[in-house]
């Protein structure tokens, strides 16, 4: 057993990381699907989209041949509508609410249709928006992730000059560094960021880290308002013995490497245990399998009923050949010569519901041992608590606290996205970025709420 890279041929890597949700190949397919939509009134799909895209309208615009109008309908509600069409867990959002589910029929392929229009808009650089003349106001946005970009776009549209400070060297946030490689490509992520900033009035300063290269107090001084969209970053520790052994990695860095290097550079073990059952855990498990790991086992404290990922995601992992052990909690990592050898787990059972409403796992006292050479920790992410504390931002365990108008405890400083909600989806971050922009425009007396 060993951890090694370059396990597969170039063709195999390409095949394994091909788009999981392929687009419509032909206009006919899109039009047939668009015509299947019955054009609901006060549509459940729209209500279940965090950015409230007018789904029946954009779908009917595809059916009528008005693709430009369709792209504009989508992007004016959700400027990352292109990326969202590839990464949204639609089974619990728009498509999960489509009325066809109530007919026991397949829901309309909303995301695939959304991709159809937005991909054209992005590739062909359609100029769908025009910003108002500059009004002299300047806003700083920290973080070029979905929340920051959505906020910047909405502000610039109204004539505000926006400067984004981003610690990485590319924009897109977790879209670029976190989302599974079989959902979006680096090229697409770059194109999407470029498309958003092509509006004008938005400057991104890369490799500028809040707390290090720039300070919140300076931003407050130099700008009329500040929006914080720094996301959550650090993987939660397991806090068990042996966690520092060679071969224990956290899912966020593992995926970060995968998204920033060629597939053949990424080393995986023969037998991998992935701890957790959220979206990140699923992504780490499926992608390590696709990189050539022989056996991948997901370890989760509770049962399938309480799992945080959706059925669709779990199915994806299962179809990739990953196995699952329910009611198991990592207790200790045993290593040999400093390298991971075994994972000891406690067997759990379900007790009373906890504050999340789900039944809590209780240790039975029994254990079992799994032979592994790699452990991927995906037991959740924690916020950038230090940065937030140092900036004197009121927070709840590192999650920035805001009022109903997205304002933080500092005057003129607003926040949204994962750094506030603790980690949801791209589409939520976009909406929170929009909300932030709206609040800032009102704060700057450019628009009333």
């Amino acid at each position, binding site marked *: 057993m060993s951890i090694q890279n370059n396990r597969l041929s170039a063709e195999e890597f390409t095949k394994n990381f091909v788009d999981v949700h392929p687009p419509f190949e032909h206009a006919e397919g899109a039009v047939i699907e668009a*015509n299947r939509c*019955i054009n609901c009134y006060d549509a*459940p799909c729209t209500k279940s989209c965090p950015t409230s895209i007018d789904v029946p309208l954009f779908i009917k615009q595809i059916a009528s041949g008005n693709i430009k109008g369709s792209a504009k309908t989508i992007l004016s509600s959700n400027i990352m509508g292109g990326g969202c069409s590839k990464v949204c867990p639609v089974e619990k959002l728009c498509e999960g609410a489509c009325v066809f589910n109530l007919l026991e029929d397949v829901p309309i392929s909303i995301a695939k249709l959304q991709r159809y229009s937005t991909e054209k808009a992005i590739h062909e650089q359609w100029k769908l928006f025009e910003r108002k003349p500059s009004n002299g106001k300047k806003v700083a946005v920290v973080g070029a992730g979905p929340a920051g970009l959505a906020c910047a776009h909405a502000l610039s549209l109204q004539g505000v000059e926006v400067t984004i400070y981003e610690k990485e060297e590319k924009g897109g946030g977790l879209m670029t560094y976190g989302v599974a490689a079989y959902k979006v490509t680096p090229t697409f992520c770059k194109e999407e960021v470029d498309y958003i900033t092509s509006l004008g009035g938005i400057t991104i300063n890369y490799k500028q880290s809040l707390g290090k290269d720039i300070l919140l107090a300076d931003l407050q001084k130099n700008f009329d308002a500040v929006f914080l969209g720094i996301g959550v970053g650090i993987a939660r520790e397991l806090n068990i013995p042996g966690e520092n052994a060679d071969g224990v990695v956290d899912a966020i860095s593992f995926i970060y490497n995968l998204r920033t290097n060629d597939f053949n550079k990424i080393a995986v073990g023969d037998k991998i245990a992935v701890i957790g059952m959220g979206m990140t855990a699923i992504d780490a498990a499926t992608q390590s399998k696709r990189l050539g790991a022989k056996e991948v086992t997901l370890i989760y404290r509770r049962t399938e009923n309480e799992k945080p990922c959706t059925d669709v995601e779990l199915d994806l992992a299962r179809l990739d050949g990953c196995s699952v052990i329910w009611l198991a909690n990592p207790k200790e990592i045993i290593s040999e010569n400093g390298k991971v050898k075994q994972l000891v787990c406690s067997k759990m059972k379900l007790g009373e519901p906890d504050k999340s409403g789900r039944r809590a796992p209780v240790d039975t006292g029994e254990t079992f041992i799994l032979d592994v050479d790699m452990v991927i920790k995906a037991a959740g992410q924690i916020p950038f608590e230090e940065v937030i504390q140092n900036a004197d931002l009121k927070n709840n365990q590192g999650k920035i606290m805001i009022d109903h108008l997205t304002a933080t405890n500092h005057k003129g400083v607003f926040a949204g996205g994962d750094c506030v909600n603790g980690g949801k989806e791209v589409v939520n971050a976009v909406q929170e970025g929009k909300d932030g922009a709206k609040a800032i425009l009102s704060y700057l007396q450019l628009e009333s709420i």
Partner: protein
Amino acid sequence: MANLQSNFLGIKSPNPFWLASAPPTDKKINVLRAFEAGWGGVVWKTLGTQVKNVSSRYSAVEYNGQRVMGFNNIELISDRPLDINLIEIKEVLKEFPDRAMVVSLMADNDRNSWHELVKKVQDTGAHGLELNFGCPHGMVERGMGASVGQDPEIAKMVVEWVMEVAQIPVITKLTPNVHSVVPAARSVLKAGSNGLSLINTIQSVTGIDLDTLVPNPNVAGHSVFGGYCGPAVKPIALKFLTTLSQDELTNKVPISGIGGITSWKDAVEFMLLGASNVQVCTAAMRYGFRIIRDLCDGMNNWMDEKGYKNIEDFVGLSVPKMIKWEELDINYHIIANIDQDKCIHCGLCYIACEDTSHQSINIEKGNPYNKYTIKEEECVGCNLCKIVCPVSDCITMEEHRKGDEYLNWKEFQKRGLPLNDH
């Protein structure tokens, strides 16, 4: 097993489905294939003076992504030599003696031409003649086709010429490009026509290419009015058919129903409104001759289910159900009801009623599903919600009579009963 045998003016066919005079019946190869597939009969593509066709010839109307909701053509009568057609007709008759062979005719507008054409066609042994007084394009400009059918006097004259030499049954095919088909129908029957058929195509412009701005079909950058047919024209055809079934002269002769027939249900509807048999063109052009299987099978199963042994048993049964507006019962009142278990919360009933009807549906906002209920006191029983609801039997119209007795509009007025106050 019901008996689908049809006898139209003595012309027998194993089923009541004939192919209408059109490209599907314009030569031996097609007709043989049609008979092999099981069609009961054909009306051979119209013969007359030989003509020349253009390219392109067809266009169609799409609706919500469905192709060929309506179909349009600018073709003329047969462009093949008359002699070849006559030989082929003879050959087909020999191979399929049990199928109906009717030949459609359109001669130049003089007595001799008609006499000559009728005689030549009769010599083939064909079972009947259909006079094409309906073609709305190309021939009209030469005083033929619809221009004959639109003028009852000219129509009468031509039929008289035909009847002077006809020895087999004569059917006159009527044009729908008139406000009423009854005057022409009465006229041709007075002149001796033995039966009627309708409708021919309806003059139309099906659409325009928004890049070239040339309407369809495009012939070297120009277009002309065409003849519209296919599913879209069925309701118009049924209306014209009904007017013939209601007229005491025209309802005495057999009528062959044509216009948008695609399924056995369409055919049954034509027959319920008085057609003795039916003819099909667009559906065959769309899908090929194989559609005959379900046309026969579906009609047969429906007849078995309803206990009709022969097709004559149900011909015309719906005609008495069509009355005049003044005779309708004003006391009859229905109110929509939504089956909450079937409702999928699409809101289509609500927005239709709210924006365009009587604001009779209540909305209770929910996330993501709203609840819709009927305001019974507001509902006028118009059917709109039921029509737009995507779920069958989810909205039903329930009877809540306004009074026990039958009350029509004349009586209503006579009694000075109140009109709506809002």
